């Protein structure tokens, strides 16, 4: 009971040691689970990897067969008095072992791609990042100012909100064919999908954030003789900037989710092409390696942006706590 009360206090922070233990566990637990399933042969392992085909005609060395099939064939061989096949328990090909993924993670950066002219993993990644950043940038150049205007002036809100509310329910991928027809088969339509997927949410989110600025700050500026345009420039924009920055971090995460859709439009490119290609060759270690890298890039870039945000908006951040 005592341990229970210590670990689950309502709305109270656990002590630092417990928290850092939990932090480490949140990553190591899934990895441990993966290791257990991979390295303990009695856990799951529904397949058998053939080492000796025996007299089973269609078995080949290193072939993966289901355990039931393996046992049935061996029984058949036994009754016929023929040599039985041998093999060891194994997992399906889509669940590679952790060390294989690590090795292939290193190899993907050191060995050239299988076919000449195909991009390396890092080239695929850079292409994906380029698509996202360009799409996000184009969306933000229009979306952020429009969002601020909508959150400040009822005029802009009434003029644009109904259409945006309608449009944001249209899934971005439905514009794929249209984007290719208009922008060709290269990067254009891919960037367009990211823009369509981001822009409408962006305007609504930024407008909402802007409208939440404490109105007594605006009133204080009015009583100090500031005109409407001055208030927009000197109060609303600097006052909402820290929150808009936070929104942008979240929106950038959303932009990533449109990446896979964007990359299969026109000619398949980037990390999605890489993953599909590796899956086609049944190099599932490479698929996992690519997925892990995407996650690491996402986590690191978000942490970096959070850190930069804390530096830029130092004085406001103090107030929040």
């Amino acid at each position, binding site marked *: 009971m005592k341990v229970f009360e210590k670990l689950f206090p309502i709305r109270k922070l656990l002590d630092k040691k417990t928290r850092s233990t939990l932090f480490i566990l949140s990553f190591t637990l899934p990895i441990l689970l993966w290791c257990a399933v991979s390295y303990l042969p009695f856990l799951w392992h529904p397949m058998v990897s053939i080492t000796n085909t025996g007299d089973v005609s269609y078995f080949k060395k290193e072939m993966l067969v289901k355990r039931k099939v393996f046992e049935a064939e061996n029984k058949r061989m036994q009754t016929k008095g023929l040599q039985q096949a041998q093999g060891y328990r194994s997992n399906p090909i889509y669940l590679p072992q952790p060390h294989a993924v690590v090795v292939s993670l290193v190899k993907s950066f050191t060995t050239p791609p299988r076919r000449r002219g195909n991009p390396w993993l890092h080239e695929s990644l850079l292409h994906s990042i380029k698509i996202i950043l360009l799409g996000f940038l184009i969306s933000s150049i229009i979306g952020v100012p429009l969002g601020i205007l909508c959150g400040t002036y009822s005029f802009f809100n009434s003029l644009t909100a109904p259409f945006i509310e309608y449009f944001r329910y249209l899934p971005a991928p439905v514009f794929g064919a249209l984007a290719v027809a208009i922008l060709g088969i290269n990067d254009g339509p891919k960037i367009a999908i990211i823009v369509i997927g981001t822009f409408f949410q962006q305007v609504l989110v930024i407008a909402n954030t802007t409208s939440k600025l404490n109105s007594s700050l605006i*009133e*204080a*500026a*009015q*009583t*100090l*003789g*500031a005109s409407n345009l001055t208030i927009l420039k000197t109060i609303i924009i600097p006052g909402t900037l820290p929150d808009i920055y936070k929104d942008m971090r979240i929106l950038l995460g959303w932009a990533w989710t449109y990446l896979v859709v964007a990359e299969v439009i026109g000619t398949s490119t980037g990390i999605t092409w890489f993953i599909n290609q590796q899956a086609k060759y049944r190099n599932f270690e490479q698929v996992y390696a690519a997925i892990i890298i995407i996650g690491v890039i996402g986590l690191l870039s978000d942490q970096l942006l959070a850190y930069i945000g804390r530096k830029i908006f130092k*004085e406001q951040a103090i107030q929040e706590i």
Partner: protein
Amino acid sequence: MSLITLPNYKEQSPDVKERFDRLKKRSVKMTVNELYKTFDTKKGPILKNVSFSTYKREFTSVIGPSGCGKSTLIRLVAGLESIDSGSINVSGTEVKKPGIERGMVFQEYTLFPWLTVTENVMYGLLRQNRSKAEAKKEALKWINLVGLDNYQDAYPSQLSGGMKQRVAIARSLATQPEMLLMDEPFGALDAQTRARMQAYLLQIWRNIDISIMFVTHDLDEAVYLSDRIIVLKGNPGEIAEIIEVPISRPRSPEQFLTPEFLATKKRLEALIHRNKEEEAVPVIPTTDLVNEIM
């Protein structure tokens, strides 16, 4: 069955009477004329037929039960709300929108968190087309007046509540308005800080030429600070009485216990708490349990 007999709050000592005579000979600073304001037509007007004037350099408080429209009244004077009917004139000009001749200090902390103390005080000055250097020089003067020289470059998040309100006062005064409107400016402060802020405010007011309109729900604060107190009754907000505070100036905290002070406060209490049966403390019958303990 009071322990001491309080004087009539309308009786003024010769020096107080003389002060009021002088005050009323000054020019009128603000006239509020038959003011009406309704937010929700179902609930009826929040302010009804409010008319009064204040004089140059007068300290006027507005007091009343919660929801009586005292904040609405000061916001109308500031030009932050629109007037339904009636009018407000400050120095002969009708109030239509906020203007720098009417500075305002809010109950909420309204310092701009991304600006330093100096930059906050400079804000209004820069809106008057002054150069940055000039605005800064002027701002430092006012920061000095509220005693925050050591905090020129601090951000609002580094200041205590009382300091924040001192900066807010400096910021409103820097543009040299004719009137300072204060909407429960010390409402969020603790008792000690509040008492110090009241003393500060009286000192500042003595040293500059400004009329103050002060909204509060604290009776002591209203009596201690004001020349006259406009008492509103709630539902709808009408003027119940305009009280001339019979206490001499300069004021000091010792006056809180003088008979005139207590008499004025008693009158305010009577005005504000009448018809408020629902808020009266119920009389609890003495039970056996209590008897046992005693």
